[in-house]
């Protein structure tokens, strides 16, 4: 047990403020992901066919519509999970009637925030490895 006082109004203000903006961001993200998913469901084939006519996107047609749709689905699901973790952080940290946030709420909220950072970290590392691997694969295939 530490000496950090949970009734400190500055502590409550910081946590409630972070939680409020986290909720707003998560809701915006989920709405955008939902709209994007809907657009993809309705017109994915048409979008891929249209892009395939452009020389720089010609490779898309070679991959095929179904694998591309699965790839986009996984991509959107990962971002939806991140938004969900942000929402859980935001909803866990609510002050009670006495303007105090409980230890259980802090433990739950920051548990979700830690997972959010961990998943984001893994995504950055994967993106970095991918950004290095693709040119190397292209060079090796040319050689």
């Amino acid at each position: 047990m530490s000496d950090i006082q949970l009734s400190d109004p500055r502590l409550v203000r910081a946590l409630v403020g972070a939680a409020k903006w986290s909720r707003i961001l998560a809701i915006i993200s989920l709405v955008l992901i939902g709209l994007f998913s809907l657009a993809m469901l309705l017109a994915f084939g048409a979008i891929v066919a249209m892009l395939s006519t452009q020389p720089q996107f010609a490779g898309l047609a070679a991959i095929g519509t179904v694998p591309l749709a699965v790839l986009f689905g996984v991509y959107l699901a990962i971002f939806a999970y991140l938004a969900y973790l942000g929402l859980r952080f935001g909803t866990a940290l609510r002050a009670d009637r006495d303007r105090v946030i409980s230890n259980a709420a802090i433990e739950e909220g920051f548990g979700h925030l830690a997972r959010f950072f961990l998943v984001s970290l893994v995504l950055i590392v994967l993106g970095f490895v991918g950004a290095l691997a693709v040119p190397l694969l292209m060079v090796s295939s040319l050689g």
Partner: protein
Amino acid sequence: MTTDDYILDDGAGLGLSRGETLSAGAAAAIARAARFGKYYLYALLAYLAISLLTPLLGIGATAEAFEEAGDGLGGQDRAAMLGGLIFVYAMILALYLYPTIMFWGFTHKTPAGLAADAQATVVEGLDNLRSTVKYIGVFTLVVLAFYAVAAALIVAVGLAQ
């Protein structure tokens, strides 16, 4: 009241009741989030640095390639490319410096405050987290508003024609 006074006073001067204190489990959860946040920040900064440095190095290579092809970039063209990049970098720096400093504060001050049992440092670290999330939230709303206005303008121009 300064930070030192606040630490010495242990919050009593602010009218804090000696009520519930942060449990070991809650402190561990905050420290864990700050630790992962720190790794995330380092990875993000490394990724950004590499992404931003690559085009800067590319200017020289592009200019040399044009020169070899007999279509040399003049000094003015090269200066214009460099000027454009510097402008883009300055914009990125202006937009991302504040949240980066704030997030850095959360990931460094909060665990230090928890380790030292210093109320003021923990509060400062968590307030930095609030500032980071608020900045990203306001920035997102501004960008969305910009897109909405742009979309409305496109529709209006399309209807007018």
